[in-house]
């Protein structure tokens, strides 16, 4: 499966949750598949989805799901020790690990070679780390929500992008409606 197929499959789970979605094609795909006010789309700033999601999870009680990518975690690797050492049990970091920089032309990342993000996360001190296959994403995500424990998921899947339109929503509108969903 490629990322867009995974997102289509888990859209019913994501719909009722606060979601922080990674820059580029992942946000475009999520926006096209199932736009919700409770989705925060990153339009820039590669690498910070996991940090934004952690700050959000530590500041209010609702569950927060971050849809991140292997390339973005690699660019902000310092996020994993911060996550591990500031436990928020309403935080789920779902890394869609397709071993490539999808938004820029599918250039390979190191996670498609020797580097294991699950092992990095464990070494950083994250306690509930689950690497799963693409077909198991929905089940593992639901289990993570049900567990009430901070979870890092590494979803191994195929490289590739769906053709989706660029998000033209104004960033302040994205942020404002998201904050209203947080506060509701």
């Amino acid at each position: 499966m490629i990322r867009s197929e995974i997102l289509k499959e888990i859209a019913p789970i994501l719909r009722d949750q606060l979601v922080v979605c990674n820059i580029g094609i992942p946000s475009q795909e999520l926006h096209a598949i199932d736009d919700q006010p409770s989705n925060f789309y990153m339009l820039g700033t590669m690498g910070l989805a996991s940090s934004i999601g952690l700050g959000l999870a530590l500041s209010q009680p609702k569950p927060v799901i971050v849809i991140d990518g292997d390339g973005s975690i690699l660019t902000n690797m310092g996020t994993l020790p911060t996550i591990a050492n500031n436990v928020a049990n309403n935080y789920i970091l779902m890394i869609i690990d397709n071993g490539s920089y999808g938004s820029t032309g599918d250039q390979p990342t190191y996670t498609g070679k020797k580097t294991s993000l699950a092992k990095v996360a464990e070494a950083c001190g994250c306690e509930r780390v689950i690497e799963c296959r693409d077909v198991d994403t929905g089940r593992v995500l639901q289990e993570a929500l049900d567990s009430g424990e901070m979870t890092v998921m590494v979803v191994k899947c195929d490289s590739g992008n769906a053709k989706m339109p660029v998000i033209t929503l104004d960033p302040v509108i994205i942020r404002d409606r998201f904050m209203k969903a947080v506060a509701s």
Partner: protein
Amino acid sequence: MNIDKKITDDLVANDISFVTTVPCKQLAGVIEEIENREEIFHIPSNKEDEGMGLCAGAWMGGKRPAIIMQNTAIGVTINTLATLIQYYRMPLPMLISYRGELREPVACQVEMAVHTKALLAQMNIPTYHFHKQSDVQELDMILKYTFMCNKPVAILTDANFWGGYGDQ
């Protein structure tokens, strides 16, 4: 006046309850004060752009954030300031140790000091420079201003403000 306590008191009085820090020797006292204050959740970050991401999330979660860092971090965070904090119009007080100014002993620090105000000006970031201890009296107003206008605001604090750096 205990400057570290005064700064922390102003943060608390302005309902700032989520503070991320990347350390600097000049900031050690205020970071310790923040760590010890019950009203503030202190979350050290490994890099300043990561810290700004944490602050963005905290603010959307209903808390008032602040970041404490060194001026070298301006070089690290230009993209984050432009495409996250400014683009989504978020407030962010940045208490910045202004290294490389008068009484600085480390020559390399001057290399970023000479760019600091120019970069902040280029980014249209309101910038205040604390040089004398009494300048801290403006901090309360600066914090109110930041959350009024929803912008990142820089407070540069140099070695003279902190009472000198080592025996220089």
